[in-house]
């Protein structure tokens, strides 16, 4: 009978944690994009600046999910 691996990277908990991080990032991104779209609908002439700020905010939120992904590269 083979011994069960005790490495975190071999367990299911790691994949579950990655999924939860993705859910958090998705909720944050959805909220930010929806607010950006509301603001653009209110003031179409500021759409360019709002879009730039939205893209930058999305990169920050995305980074949090990527920190969870990085833990898989570091064994």
């Amino acid at each position: 009978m083979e011994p069960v691996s005790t490495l975190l990277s071999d367990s299911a908990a790691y994949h579950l944690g990655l999924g939860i991080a993705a859910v958090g990032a998705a909720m944050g991104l959805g909220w930010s994009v929806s607010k950006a779209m509301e603001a653009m609908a209110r003031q179409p002439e500021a759409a360019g600046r709002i879009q730039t700020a939205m893209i930058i905010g999305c990169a920050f939120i995305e980074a949090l999910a990527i920190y969870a992904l990085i833990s898989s590269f570091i064994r």
Partner: protein
Amino acid sequence: MHSLQDILHLHVVQASDADSGKSGPPLPPDIISMIHHWGEGIWLFERMYDFKYQIYILITIGLIYLVFSRAGRNASIRPGRLQALAELLIEAVYGIVEGILGPKDARRYFPFLGTLFIFILFMNFLGLVPLMASPTANILVTGSLAICVFLYVQYTGLVRQGVKGYFFHLMGEPRDPVGWALVPLFLPLHILEELIKPLSLACRLYGNVYGKEILLGVLLLLGIWMVQGFIPGTFIGVPLHFPAMFLAILLGAIQALVFTLLATVYISLVLPHDDHHGEEHGADGAAH
């Protein structure tokens, strides 16, 4: 030495961990890994493989020099296409930096921030060229860039605010007894914050670019497996990674912009902000 057949089959390079012997995620093939696999044991190829990312950084610098020296040659008021493209890139970044720092400081710190943006942009895009890999797909490269930003920001803070002003800023700028009582709380927090901010910069860029490489590698492998069911021993495959290339272009540009933007914000945080209060009050007084 491997045969030509072996090299043609090395369409997707397995990133293997030399220490544990386990193979890592598949990556798109790059020329240095292919040469190293073809001539395993040759001293020159082994050293080339050890310095793989440094060689790609040198290739990036060569590309940047070629593009921008040609764009700047015979610069005229009516620009040609290459000069117009270079001006577009630089003016876009300068506009964003100026929005954060104000015209005087933006002019002063833009050489560093603009170089950072162009460098990271070219490094991210180098991974999309068929036989190349992104140097930023390595935590050491992105960590070095983050250390550069860290040192530059701290140096700027020390120069602009003076050593005493810098420590005052680190303590949270206490002005009343409540502020002074909170110093033991603020000082470690601020020091930790100053150390973690470059770490987050490095991790964000590294995770995005390395994840992009893994995505491309896995899709390439899937495309090849699909064709191998019909024609065994082939090195062509269904181009499933084509949509992922667009994602890679978009994310590469965005990550370069975010890195530069965050460096700008960190610089703006260590600049003295007393004069801004005076300007704001002046503007309010004129408006009312």
